């Protein structure tokens, strides 16, 4: 792994993450209760408060990150997205063929939604009063989120590591802070190395799943039409392994991304996540969530963020003390909320 070049007058800073699992759980639970009591309306306020808490408890050099979206923006975006979503649900029940056409129409629309969603998220994130910005455009999103995944499929996923690298470059390389563009100089080799490890883990997973599948099929012999839910144990095992595989990949790639990300003479990062550590946190969280029927979701989120923050170092130059904000944060939350509603959130990193 290449050590990133350091800047001449840089100073190093830890990322201090002061949120506590219990503190966030309290906030999250009460907000969820208020959301339920208001039939979902309060959800927009809950989202803002949850993010304000998590961002506000993340500080670098005693300056806290800021989440600047307003509940009204989110509520409007959410209602609009809900309307579109309901039309989809309604149409696909009454006319499956028309629904098929609508889903096809969604394909050219989705890059626009992705760009809008990223813009909303970036622009409502600020550090020291200066908002981030996303500079990717429609064609870029079309290429990275529609064309490249097709390329990956056509090459029997041999090109997938490269495609993921390109997507990461699109998402991070189009980030601007105070007019300074970030660059992500990741190497394709690192992605293939991570993919190879993932491939080996997957083979083990496949053998395990195949053997348990054989077991289930034997017990089902002679019974009536197979009940989809009798596949539940297998589905759970598959989820488990997909989490395992994902976290191995994430742990390996996260360090590489952090060390390849920089804005010239302004900021660079170092990340010391270990596969074992990251995997341990992921498994701990999975157990917590399963045994609390999902109630430990907020605690799990804090535990994971705390681990990542503790392993990351930021290097800043004195230029950070004199940056000027370049963007407003007034755009609609429709893209982001639609992404959540249609479950196409970008949770790649």
């Amino acid at each position, binding site marked *: 792994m290449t050590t990133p070049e350091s800047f001449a007058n840089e100073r190093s800073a830890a990322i201090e993450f002061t*949120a506590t699992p219990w*503190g966030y*759980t*309290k*906030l999250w*639970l*009460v907000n*969820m*209760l*208020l*959301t*339920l009591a208001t*039939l*979902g309306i309060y*959800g927009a306020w809950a*989202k803002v*408060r*949850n993010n*304000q*808490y998590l961002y*506000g*408890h993340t500080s670098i050099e*005693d300056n806290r990150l800021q989440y600047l979206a307003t509940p009204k923006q989110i509520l409007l975006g*959410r209602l609009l*997205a*809900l309307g579109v*979503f*309901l039309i989809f*649900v309604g149409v696909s029940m*009454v*006319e*499956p*063929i028309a629904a098929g056409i609508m889903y096809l129409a969604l394909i050219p629309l989705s890059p626009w939604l992705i760009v809008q969603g990223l813009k909303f998220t970036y622009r409502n994130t600020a550090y*020291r*009063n*200066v908002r981030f910005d996303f500079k990717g455009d429609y064609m870029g999103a079309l290429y990275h989120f529609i064309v490249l995944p097709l390329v990956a499929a056509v090459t029997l996923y041999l090109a997938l590591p490269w495609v993921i690298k390109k997507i990461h470059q699109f998402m991070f390389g189009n980030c601007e802070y*105070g007019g300074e563009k970030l660059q992500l100089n990741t190497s394709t080799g690192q992605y293939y190395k991570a993919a190879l490890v993932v491939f080996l883990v997957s083979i083990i997973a496949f053998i395990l799943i195949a053997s348990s599948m054989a077991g289930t099929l034997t017990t089902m012999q*002679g*019974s*009536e*039409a197979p*009940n989809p*839910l009798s596949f*539940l144990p297998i589905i759970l095992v598959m989820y488990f392994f997909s989490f395992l595989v994902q976290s191995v990949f994430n742990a390996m790639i996260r360090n590489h991304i952090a060390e390849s990300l920089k804005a010239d003479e302004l900021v660079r990062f170092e990340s010391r996540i270990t596969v074992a550590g990251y995997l341990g946190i992921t498994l701990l*969280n999975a157990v917590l*969530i*399963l045994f609390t*029927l*999902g*109630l430990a*979701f907020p605690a*799990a989120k804090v535990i994971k963020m705390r681990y990542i923050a503790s392993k990351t170092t930021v290097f800043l130059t004195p230029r950070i003390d*004199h940056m*000027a*904000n370049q963007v407003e944060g007034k755009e609609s939350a429709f893209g982001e*909320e639609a992404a*959540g*509603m249609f479950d196409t*959130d970008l*949770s790649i990193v």
Partner: protein
Amino acid sequence: MQRITGKYCMAGRSDTRPAILLLRDDGSLRVLATDFDYELTSTTLKECRQGDILPGIPVELHFDSGDYFIPEDPDLRWTPRSGFLAYLESHMVMVLAAALLVPLSFWLMFTQVIPAGAKATAPLVPQEVLNRVGRSSMKTLDYSLEPSTLAQYEQASIIKDWNKAAEKAGLDNDYRILFRSAIAPNAFALPDGTIVVFDELVNILSRDELIAVLFHEAGHVDRRHGAQMMVQASAGAIVYGLLLGDLEGLSEVVLGTGISLGENAFSRTMETDADDFAVEHLKAAGMSPDLLASALNSLPGSERETNSWREYLSTHPERKTRTERIESASD
């Protein structure tokens, strides 16, 4: 007079200055830069806007210029009765109540409120919509079903027997019986009144047992179970989208599983409903309700022992529960 140490931030700039805010009892205030002791701003508390209050995070004080002051102390409050939300969010009773009420409300929402709402609103779904749904579902299903291999006269005689029984039971008969072939013996109803019977079912049941099954399927149509399922699915999607859109990863899987268990419970009550409908109409047609029980028992897998926990995973109640219920009704 209060001396509050903190940091002065300038609108739209990353520049910050260590500062002291001097707050008088009358609400007037001055902010001084600590390093050179010059005045950064002076105003009154009334003209300022305070930031949101979150546990463990200092509350900002925003000035007209867009600049703001962040105190060092995260517990400092600018007005005495501020922070109702923060109070709720950190108050033990509220948190415990939420920990109990949140899962309970979700459970009630998906097992009681939505099904009851679906039941209540199902009659409001226009018949024209149900007819369209039925037609287009049949079109879609026909891609995966084989045409029936039953002889024409046999199909006609089943329909004739059904019509006779339905008339005797006083059933408004606008059902359309279709025959198809598939891998398993089964029958299902569509909301427009179409009942599809698989050859495999016709082959293993007696004629009277088959009529009993048709009454059960007619029950699904008559009680508008299709419309109920449509309303339930849409309502479930809205609730899920609005309340749980922020969840990700494993939590989504866990909750999704919980919700489908709740939906299965709803589906089981519809099966019981349809059984009751069939029993009632079999009696009215002068036939034995036991026919439905024996039809159920003729389906493959009936020798399997009852596992009560399995029932929660299933869309149909356990066969033993169903036959016992039917038999008790026939006495």
